[in-house]
């Protein structure tokens, strides 16, 4: 027999034996080391939007799906998915969807740049986190700094800075809470939106009236007029009024309007999507030019001075 023939036969048989042996070992291992996975998890994961925003409190959609399958949590925590997603999840798990309302971000400050007093020049890094470390950037130590950490944190382009004040676009906000976690002054909270428009307290300053007047043209002075008008809806939390949203009924427009009128500083605001009447009222006004998308890397977001 020639060398080449033996070599060929040996090579072929070595490979064939190796393939069969490895195939057998892997097949055996696959059965022996089989890990049973709950089939619900995959279905639930497919039903979730996959945005991995973390708004539900879990690290990404797969963690939430696993927690749902184990019954540790409830459907309807997914803010981007909304009601239809909650329904799908409930169908998979065979449970009822509980009545829920979406949560949306609310900025508890309404002072634009010119309304904030005692402002000093700030030449540091253009982020709120850095500016918050410096004393005396502006008089109010509670209010919005207007350097846009929330706008950079928002994946849905809903938060933006308008005239030095963080402003939420409620057509875009999905209530993931990225902005409220980012804000170094903790003035953005998530409010249950029982209606398209919700009344909110638009100030965070806990100081006394004289101190507030010294640093802000519009801040809440803590006069408690609102609490006297609607004691069951509004209570004082320190020097600031707080709305109890459990008792908030969007149908009772008159009660809400009376609170709005009574406030001497007009610190109650309706935020949310505008009503058709509001749109009609500003119809004749010229809209600012549409802002086109500016595709930037995260490195570009870091602005440096000096």
């Amino acid at each position, binding site marked *: *027999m020639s*060398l080449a023939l*033996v*070599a060929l036969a*040996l*090579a072929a048989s*070595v*490979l064939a034996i*190796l*393939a069969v042996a*490895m195939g057998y*070992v*892997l097949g055996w*291992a*696959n059965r*022996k*080391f*089989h*890990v049973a996975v709950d089939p619900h998890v995959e279905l639930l994961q497919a039903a979730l939007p996959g945005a991995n925003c973390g708004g539900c409190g879990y690290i990404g959609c797969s963690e939430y799906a696993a927690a749902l399958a184990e019954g540790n949590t409830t459907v309807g925590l997914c803010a981007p998915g909304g009601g239809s997603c909650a329904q799908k999840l409930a169908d998979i798990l065979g449970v009822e969807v509980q009545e829920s309302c979406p949560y949306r971000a609310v900025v508890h400050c309404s002072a634009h740049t010119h309304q904030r007093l005692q402002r000093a020049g700030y030449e540091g890094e253009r982020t709120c986190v850095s500016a918050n470390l410096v004393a005396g950037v502006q008089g109010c130590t509670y209010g919005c700094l207007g350097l846009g950490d929330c706008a950079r944190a928002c994946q849905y382009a809903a938060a933006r800075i308008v005239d030095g004040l963080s402003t939420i676009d409620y057509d875009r906000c999905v209530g993931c809470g990225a902005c409220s976690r980012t804000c170094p002054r903790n003035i953005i909270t998530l409010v249950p939106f029982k209606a398209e428009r919700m009344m909110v307290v638009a100030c965070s300053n806990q100081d006394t009236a004289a101190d507030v007047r010294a640093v802000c043209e519009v801040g809440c002075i803590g006069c408690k007029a609102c609490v006297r008008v609607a004691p069951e809806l509004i209570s004082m939390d320190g020097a600031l009024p707080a709305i109890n949203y459990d008792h908030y009924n969007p149908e009772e427009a008159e009660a809400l309007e009376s609170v709005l009128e009574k406030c001497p500083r007009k610190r109650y605001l309706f935020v949310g999507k505008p009503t058709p009447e509001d749109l009609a009222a500003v119809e004749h006004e010229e809209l600012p030019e549409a802002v086109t998308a500016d595709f930037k*890397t*995260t*490195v570009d977001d*870091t602005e*440096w001075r000096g």
Partner: protein
Amino acid sequence: METLTGLILIFISAALINNFVLHYFVGICPFLGVSRRVDTAFGMGCAVTFVISISTMLNWMFTSFILRPGAPLPAWVWRTAGGNPQTQLDLSVLSYIIYIFVIASSVQFVEMYVRKFSPPLYKSFGVFLPLITTNCAILFASLEVLKHMQDPANLWSLPQALTLALGGGIGFTLAISLMAGIREELDLCDVPRPLRGAGIALIVAGIMAMAFMGFTGVEKGVETALTSLLR
């Protein structure tokens, strides 16, 4: 003592002097792809070290018994077939296909095993293990061992092969962790616009490779130092 010196030399050579990534330029894809953050880079490095050791061990067995010139199995078959004992049956052409085969299957097996018996380890390795199957640094370690299995009088033993694999894996971990550290700092630097991303990463890798060139020739000094130390 001779063998211990040899092993230490092989280790230092694989980890530093002839670093897999920075001297031979193998395993570049994970080196650039998974080097954005130090903790993931370190995890990738550990997974590579683990897999490279296991697959090199298996491949050393196949090399030593089947693939190298003058290996026992082909020699026995050739004798049984009644061939001339002067000529040799050489199966080293099969090295690539068998190595890749062994690496892929062993990674699969390890993944299943870890998933069953150590879920936390599976979670931390999870993404990297399947990626490593196609990492050329691992195939390269087996091929390096094959190079030292050509001469029947001077064969590499299993400890030597394992030391090379371990050194290569640790050298890879070192290189990728250093790279990730530099890239984390780079995120805060004002890099010229055209160089951002892959451009500056490749420039950094090149400068790192030049820095590692400084180790060239160190092995002679290390050898003298070790022999005088261990005598």
